[in-house]
């Protein structure tokens, strides 16, 4: 039998903090939470050309976790990536030596500091990766004792709508949150599913006695089962349900029909979203009217030549009115956002 050759890494040297070191790329570990699409390719190329010519002039900031062999980047991921590319291309320093990165070694960040740093990166992330952000936000809210959106926005850099979406995710029991943390994209329930399902669940449980009896968790499970069975082909289809409800506000018989359909939709696993609710939302005139209204609003405003309005009162009134329009438009635009997880195949 061949001899078993054990393999163990070398003992990492403990490096005092507050030190400027020159590290090779192999001694540095890239950040796990830094998504690749964060970096603009053209800017990265420009930086790389600059580094190839002058070297890294501003040291990166790194720390070494206890027991860790490499240094983790706190600041300087772009400089590091450029250097990795240059090393791959076989570049050497002017003296022919291996390329190195100047690095300030600092203490590992505290838990909250680490989370806040991660948030600054997550700002650039897409909606379908929201569950990890939501979980981290929960820790920040608990540790810092605040759940106010404005304070959280200042602390984390997440926009208020993003914070609101995270909070919606946290409203679901952990057993459902866990479904969005499944490593397998084929079985993972995308975070957007919960965000889009929430108003439907609230409405259904408020209006259906049968669903009330069934309970919130079981009703949620029914939606999950439907999604897995491809009876909800896109998370955006939840909007058809809400749209059907809103559109029948002034039509009592149609409204009660929608409510009956919602109940049936939950209870009958075979019913697919579009076949149940499309008849209520076929009317496209509303959106066309809204588009026309946006266009004429802009044309009218431009016609008024308001840019050089002189009167203080008039300017103040106009600004107030525009602010109101802006707020409504922004909230509407935010509400219209949403998409399926590109990794989730529901076709």
């Amino acid at each position, binding site marked *: *039998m*061949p001899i*078993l*050759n*054990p*393999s*163990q*890494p070398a*003992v*990492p040297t*403990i490096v005092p903090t507050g030190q400027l070191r020159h590290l090779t790329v*192999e001694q540095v*570990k*890239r950040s*796990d*939470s830094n998504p690749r699409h964060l970096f603009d390719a053209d800017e990265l190329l420009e930086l790389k050309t600059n580094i190839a010519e002058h070297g890294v002039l501003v040291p990166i900031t790194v*720390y070494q*976790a*206890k*027991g*860790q*062999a*490499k240094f*983790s980047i706190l600041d300087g991921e772009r400089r590091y990536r450029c250097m990795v590319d240059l090393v791959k291309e076989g570049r050497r320093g002017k003296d022919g030596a291996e390329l190195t990165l100047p690095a300030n070694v600092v203490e*590992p*960040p*505290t*838990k909250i500091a*680490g*989370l806040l740093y991660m948030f600054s990166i997550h700002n650039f992330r897409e909606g379908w*990766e929201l569950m*990890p952000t939501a*979980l*981290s936000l929960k*820790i920040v809210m608990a540790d810092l004792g605040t759940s106010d959106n404005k304070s959280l926005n200042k602390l984390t850099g997440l926009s208020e709508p993003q914070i609101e979406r995270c909070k919606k995710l946290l409203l679901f029991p*952990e057993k459902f*949150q*866990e479904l969005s*943390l*499944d*490593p397998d994209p084929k079985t993972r329930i995308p975070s957007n599913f919960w965000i889009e399902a929430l108003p439907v669940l609230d409405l259904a449980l408020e209006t259906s006695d049968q669903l009330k009896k069934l309970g919130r968790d079981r009703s949620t499970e029914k939606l999950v089962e439907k999604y897995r069975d491809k009876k909800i082909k896109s998370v955006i289809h939840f909007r058809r349900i809400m749209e059907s409800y809103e559109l029948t506000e002034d039509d009592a018989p149609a409204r009660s029909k929608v409510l009956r359909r919602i109940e049936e939709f939950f209870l009958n696993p075979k019913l697919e979203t579009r076949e149940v609710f499309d008849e209520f939302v076929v009317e496209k005139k509303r959106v066309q009217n809204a588009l026309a209204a946006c266009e004429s609003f802009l044309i009218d405003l431009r016609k008024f030549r308001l840019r050089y309005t002189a009167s203080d009162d008039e300017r103040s009134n106009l600004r107030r009115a525009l602010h109101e329009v802006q707020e409504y438009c922004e909230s509407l635009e935010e509400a219209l956002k949403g998409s399926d997880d590109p990794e989730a195949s529901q076709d």
Partner: protein
Amino acid sequence: MRRIIHSIRAALRFRGYKPKPLSILSARRWAQQFDKNDRVLAEKLLDGVIYITESETREILVKQNDDLMSRLKVAGLPAKKLIYVSVHDAASSSSVMLNMLRDSANLERRGCKIIDGRDTLGLVKAMNTIGEGALVYVDDFVGSGTQFCTERDFIAKNFVGTFSEFIISPSICEEAFDELSKRDVQVFAGHKHVKSERPLYAECTVFNEKQRQRLTAICNGIDKFGLGFNGLATMVILYRNAPNTVPVMLRGSSNQKPYFGIFPRTTDLPIPAQARS
């Protein structure tokens, strides 16, 4: 006579293989599946197997873990700062290895936390409570490292606090080291499975080029993935199961038809008629 002795030796050496214990007769029948000229090659291939028994597995896991714990203690991370994580599915080899290590090394009594890698919330909570520590993944075998790294990268999105990462495993292929190193997952393995130990690789001198090509052709004739997942053609067999990176000549076809293997994988064994009804 030489064949009989070879079969006896194989049956004795691999008798503890759990999915299907080997007898002298089945060892002989296995060799007889191949043409007369190929039998010598098949038997020589079998000689190249690196078999890790249950007791060796336990011994390796405990030894590597002791070394890791001592090192972490010196680095300022006592046992209560360590989270042991199984990767892959609940019933996978990783969970079995972790359970074995937990029992043999008294991990829970020493204050370590044990988490199923799929329980992301549990992991986040444990990391949040500890704040600073080490994550120790436990697995039975790592081939290319792709599967491990994919799962690890997904859970890494949820990491909270400052944690260094380690993997303990009885055996890890050399191909995985680069991927693990990129993530600074430090390897504590009983065995580094290098290419020169794999007879179906040019780096290995067990066979000459012609013989190697013949064996490769037999494997690819049985199955299009005849050399195993990613063409790794690994030779490490654990008492509990054969990795999917092992050549198909040794592990047999799916359902063990038309070729049966000396080391059938549990998922390749035919389902007994009673269980099917």
